[in-house]
């Protein structure tokens, strides 16, 4: 080689003559390549509204609350409401719980914090006016969500509500201490401010028919809920107080326990609400359920709170008969045991032959609700007599859509919101716009075994604070502080979503990750070792076989 003819010409150590970036393109050694990939987080997969939780968490982390809210609103218009009452299906799948044996991220509390932080922001109509008029029947969560999405898309929306105010179960069912009325008012006001026309005191069937609406509107969405008390086979049923009207009265400040010793029959969410409301009215309360704690349909959190409220539970007791005797009610109870699973998948309670009697001043029934569907004509029913509703809310009548509890039976607020949104999108599509929200391609869900919690901060989960209750029905929890929300957000592994944490950059042994606005993999030098993929906390990277992407 020229210039190395004498020992003095030599460098002290062997150094490449040219920068290695020109010579040693080690990327050619690779058989697989890492790719930054958007994948579905288990929380998102668990959420009925499919909110992209890691993405809006990242925006919160970067202080971009407006963007975080925008992203949230694409899936759910009411973070202040679901942030308080949602059973947080999202948290059940949290990778942190499985991979690190830690409490799941307190997703609902952060949602609530975000909603409260951005409460002042008005909703905006994002599309050009379409002059299409759409009728929404029922002002509960499904109807309100559909109104939001259709109005946002430029349509003229009229919301028909049979009561004095919109809000449905959120206003008249869920007790004040869980969801203050002012929050619901605020959401209704925001809908009205964005131009949703809300007509109250009018009801389908009494004031207008489905056909009337079809004549006047381009599309109709019916979401009148499931507010009809299911009949029980208890003898003397007329002596029972129905649960939902009691809750509604309590919400209006007119609830009365009708005595000191109260029983609540049933163990769903309505039963918990009735029991806890009765406790707040000063009564002693016993919940009576024919199965056990493990089969109850109430969400765990509400059961825990009922216990904390010193509600008593009698399991495996099936009311047979209620009798009035002097000034009290006598409840005859069959003692049960669990048998084979029934069609609900839960063990069927069977009588043991033993019975007993308990005495109460009043007994409340919360044995479930069903939808009132008398206003739907025969042509829209299936052979069971129910309204035939597709996943997007479509019915046998192309102009009529339906959803929420009306279609599913009693469910949760978030499921109703998802149904309202799905129907809104279907209506928008059907009207020929399809200018709603771009739908992300469905992608695979991150599995707990893939994530890497090693480098995440490990501190205790932050839940909404219990607050010292000043008045009977004041909200019982308080929103996280900014600092708590920030710290809790940092616990998120960001499954399937690159939040620019930089772990891959730190660990790449070949310095083949170049940091621009985020990681860019320099495929000239990446040897495909996969360390970045394994180290990525949320596994937002995948290895792709080189043969699938190149001619190597």
């Amino acid at each position, binding site marked *: 080689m020229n210039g190395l003819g004498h020992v003095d010409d030599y460098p002290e150590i062997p*150094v490449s003559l040219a920068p290695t970036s020109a*010579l040693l393109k080690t990327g050619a050694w690779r058989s697989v390549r890492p790719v930054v990939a958007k994948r579905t987080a288990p929380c998102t997969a668990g959420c009925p509204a499919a909110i992209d939780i890691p993405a809006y968490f990242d925006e919160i982390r970067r202080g971009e609350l407006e963007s975080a809210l925008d992203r949230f609103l694409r899936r759910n218009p009411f973070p202040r409401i679901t942030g308080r009452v949602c059973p947080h299906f999202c948290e059940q799948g949290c990778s942190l719980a499985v991979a690190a044996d830690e409490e799941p991220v307190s997703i609902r509390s952060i949602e609530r914090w975000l909603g409260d932080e951005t409460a002042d922001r008005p909703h905006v109509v994002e599309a050009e006016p379409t002059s299409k008029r759409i009728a929404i029947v029922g002002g509960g969560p499904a109807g309100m969500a559909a109104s939001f999405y259709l109005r946002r898309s430029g349509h003229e929306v009229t919301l028909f509500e049979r009561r004095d105010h919109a809000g449905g179960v959120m206003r008249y069912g869920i007790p004040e201490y869980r969801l203050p009325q002012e929050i619901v008012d605020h959401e209704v006001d925001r809908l009205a401010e964005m131009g949703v026309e809300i007509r109250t005191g009018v009801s389908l069937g009494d004031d207008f028919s489905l056909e009337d609406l079809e004549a006047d509107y381009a599309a109709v969405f019916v979401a009148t809920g499931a507010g009809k008390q299911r009949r029980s086979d208890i003898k003397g049923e007329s002596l029972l107080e129905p649960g939902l009207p009691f809750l509604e009265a309590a919400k209006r400040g007119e609830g009365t326990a009708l005595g000191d010793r109260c029983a609540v029959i049933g163990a769903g969410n309505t039963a918990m609400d009735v029991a806890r409301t009765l406790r707040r009215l000063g009564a002693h309360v016993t919940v009576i359920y024919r199965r056990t704690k493990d089969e109850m349909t109430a969400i765990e959190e509400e059961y825990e709170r009922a216990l904390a409220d010193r509600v008593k539970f009698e399991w495996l007791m099936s009311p047979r008969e209620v009798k009035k005797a002097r000034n009290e009610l006598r409840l005859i109870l069959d003692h049960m045991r669990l048998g084979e699973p029934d069609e609900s998948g839960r063990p069927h309670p069977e009588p043991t032959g033993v019975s007993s009697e308990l005495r109460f001043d009043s007994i409340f029934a919360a044995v479930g609700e069903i939808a009132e569907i008398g206003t739907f004509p025969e042509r829209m029913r299936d052979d069971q007599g129910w309204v035939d509703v597709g996943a997007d809310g479509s019915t046998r009548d192309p102009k009529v859509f339906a959803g929420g509890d009306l279609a599913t039976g009693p469910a949760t607020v978030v499921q109703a919101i998802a149904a309202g949104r799905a129907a809104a999108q279907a209506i928008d599509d059907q009207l020929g716009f399809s200018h709603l929200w771009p739908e992300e391609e469905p992608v695979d869900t991150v599995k707990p075994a893939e994530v890497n919690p090693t480098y995440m901060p490990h501190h205790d989960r932050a839940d909404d604070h219990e607050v010292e209750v000043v008045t009977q029905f004041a909200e019982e929890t308080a929103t996280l502080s900014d600092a708590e929300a920030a710290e809790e957000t940092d616990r998120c592994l960001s499954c399937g979503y690159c939040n620019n944490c930089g772990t891959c950059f730190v660990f790449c042994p070949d310095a083949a990750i170049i940091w621009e606005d985020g990681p860019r993999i320099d495929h000239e030098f990446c040897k495909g070792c996969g360390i970045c993929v394994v180290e990525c906390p949320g596994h937002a990277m995948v290895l792709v076989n080189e043969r699938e992407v190149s001619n190597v």
Partner: protein
Amino acid sequence: MSERLLLTGNHAAAYGAMLARAEVISAYPITPQTMIVELLSEMTASGRLPAKFITVESEHSAMAACVGASAAGARTYTATSGQGLALMHEMLHWAVGARLPIVLTNVSRAMAPGWSIWSDQSDILSQRDVGWMMLFAESVQEAQDFILWTYRVAEQVFLPGMVGMDAFILSHTAEPLIVHDQEAVDAYLPKFDPLYDLDPAEPRAYGGLVNRDHYFEMRYKIYENMDRAGQLLVEAGEEFGEVLGHRYTPLEGFMLDDADYVIVSAGAMTSNIRQAVRDLREEGMKVGLLRVIAFRPFPVDEVRRILTGRTKVAVLDRNMSAGHSGIFAQEIRSAMLGQPDAPPIYGYVVGIGGRDVRVETGHQVLHDLLTREEPELALFVGLKGLPIGPVRKDFEIKPLAPLEVMQ
């Protein structure tokens, strides 16, 4: 201001690294590690020594981290001992080839099995040919000062250096130590100026593949620089005296002027040998002591100058190279080979596996030297049941069956 403390050799070494303002210290923190890095970890944690302290999972990785840090321009230090130094072996070569003036302290121990944590020169002398400078400390003061002395030379020739310190009799023994004034040390040891600037904007491959056309030349330069280090050690030792108050030399003589007999020793056992020399002088034996401080580069010329014309020379080895002799004896013999008036060299193997080398051991060796007529490669001192003498020729082995020649 300098201060006078009572410290062990381990802690003295830590003070040496601190005074040198080591910027990166990487070490394996578990056995056979010593309190050297324990104290350094405390110094770095407290901020007293503003350095990066990197714990790793093996001595191999410790030296690898030192290689990286030194290549990046940091003054880099580590410490190890025994099997740890052996595990570092591959990376010791790397530091030489990459011309990185890393300094390490080795607390010299016997090698396993059988497991031993006691004093022995086998671990450090097993690294004789990797190309590191090697100094042997005798005192706690030297355990500290030799680190500074080594850095001063290493950073001129861009070769690494190790300071050997006898396990326990030096590493765990407390002696008065003068901790030098930091400003004076800074004057002696300016900031490290690396051979190459690594520039992330223009990444290059360092230490890559070299063909037959070029390897020899680069290795020759290492040899040349190690050779140059010999003179630099002398100069830097004098500078040490000027700046820090004590002059160090690669060799140290005691009662040599008129000595007919010379005993050669290295490391901490020399202190007892010095007393033995004094005692034998009183008995009328004209004996002197030559202490080898610099083992690499080996001060061949000075050894020749000192030993030429003596009647007999005894060399003490706290090691033995099976199949030959003690390693110091080999080195001395090799230096004297073919010199006119070269004295006969008697190799004595003592103190293996931490067995005490007492003043009396020195007496025995010198009495043996006086009476023994023929020099031997290795004379074993203190084996149970055997007098001082060479390896037995008549001991029985279990021979293989005689070969049957195939037709």
